[in-house]
């Protein structure tokens, strides 16, 4: 933690709690974050105007691609991945459930979430026939809570996305310090179970101290 004084003020202005250590080793930058950056960066847009149609001034504190207000976008990786057994034991005939954990301690209490998109990548496309994804909150050391979100999943070849805001995450609630979810994917027809390769959360927040309050979506 920075000693009080100009360094702390600078870090706070940057939206950081302490001086950043530096680039983590094996953490590639997700393509979605590059895409959002290239669309937002006015100087990048000046360099390659083809990305931004002329006159399309980007609204401050708005993420055009995701259609929501926000001035901070975070791509958060599941913390539970490292501790997850390769294929958790499952009751006979039942496909395994997974617990994913997202560390949100970097999100400040003043920030208002405007989008929380869960993204799941599976190891193999799996047989056709469709699946059903269910999402529940999971307390530390306890079993899964009630199912908060059910979603049909036609295929596993592409990332499976689920919007959590308004279901697994109350719309006006500020970010919890960590978000633990229990996921289950059930095949519609008897099939081999899927294997979760990666879970991530794309979180958009708006800091009202730096932006106008959450603008109501236009009618």
């Amino acid at each position, binding site marked *: 933690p920075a000693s009080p004084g100009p360094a702390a003020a600078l870090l706070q202005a940057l939206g950081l709690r302490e001086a950043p250590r530096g680039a*983590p080793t094996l953490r590639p930058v997700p393509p979605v974050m*590059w895409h959002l950056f290239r669309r937002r*960066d006015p100087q990048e847009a000046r360099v390659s105007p083809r990305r931004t149609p002329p006159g399309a001034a980007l609204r*401050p504190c708005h993420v055009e691609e995701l259609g929501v207000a926000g001035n*901070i976008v975070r791509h958060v990786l599941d913390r539970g991945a490292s501790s997850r057994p390769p294929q958790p034991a499952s009751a006979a005939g039942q496909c395994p459930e997974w617990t994913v954990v997202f560390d949100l301690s970097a999100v400040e209490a003043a920030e208002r979430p405007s989008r929380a998109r869960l993204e799941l990548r599976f190891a193999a496309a799996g047989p056709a026939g469709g699946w059903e994804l269910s999402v529940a909150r999971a307390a530390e050391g306890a079993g899964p809570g009630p199912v908060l979100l059910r979603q049909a999943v036609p295929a596993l070849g592409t990332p499976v996305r689920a919007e959590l805001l308004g279901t697994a995450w109350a719309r006006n609630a500020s970010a919890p310090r960590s978000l633990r979810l229990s996921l289950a994917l059930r095949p519609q027809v008897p099939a081999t179970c899927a294997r979760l390769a990666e879970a991530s959360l794309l979180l958009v927040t708006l800091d009202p101290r730096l932006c106008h309050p959450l603008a109501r979506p236009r009618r």
Partner: protein
Amino acid sequence: EAEPAVGSVPGGACRARRLYVSFREVGWHRWVIAPRGFLANYCQGQCALPAALSGSGGPPALNHAVLRALMHAAAPGAAGLPCCVPARLSPISVLFFDNSDNVVLRHYEDMVVDECGCR
């Protein structure tokens, strides 16, 4: 890199001058993914008449800065010249790693000087 100012007194009328900020030079390059730096620019130049009259693109306007420049011309000791400051700024977005290994895209307002004016 900055455009060299002429002599001690900033040369020429008040205007935006080129200033490229390299994140490597400020020691942020290890955690900032992109951009590597950006054109921040800066304001410098005289705000005496008639420079003080030049509004941002529109017709010259009588305002506080013009009166101060006029006063300075009539009685230099009365009050200093108006200041050459940013009149229009634009934001940048920075992509970086935070200490929780999240990849963060954050929008920072008022980071680039697009236009300067006498105030």
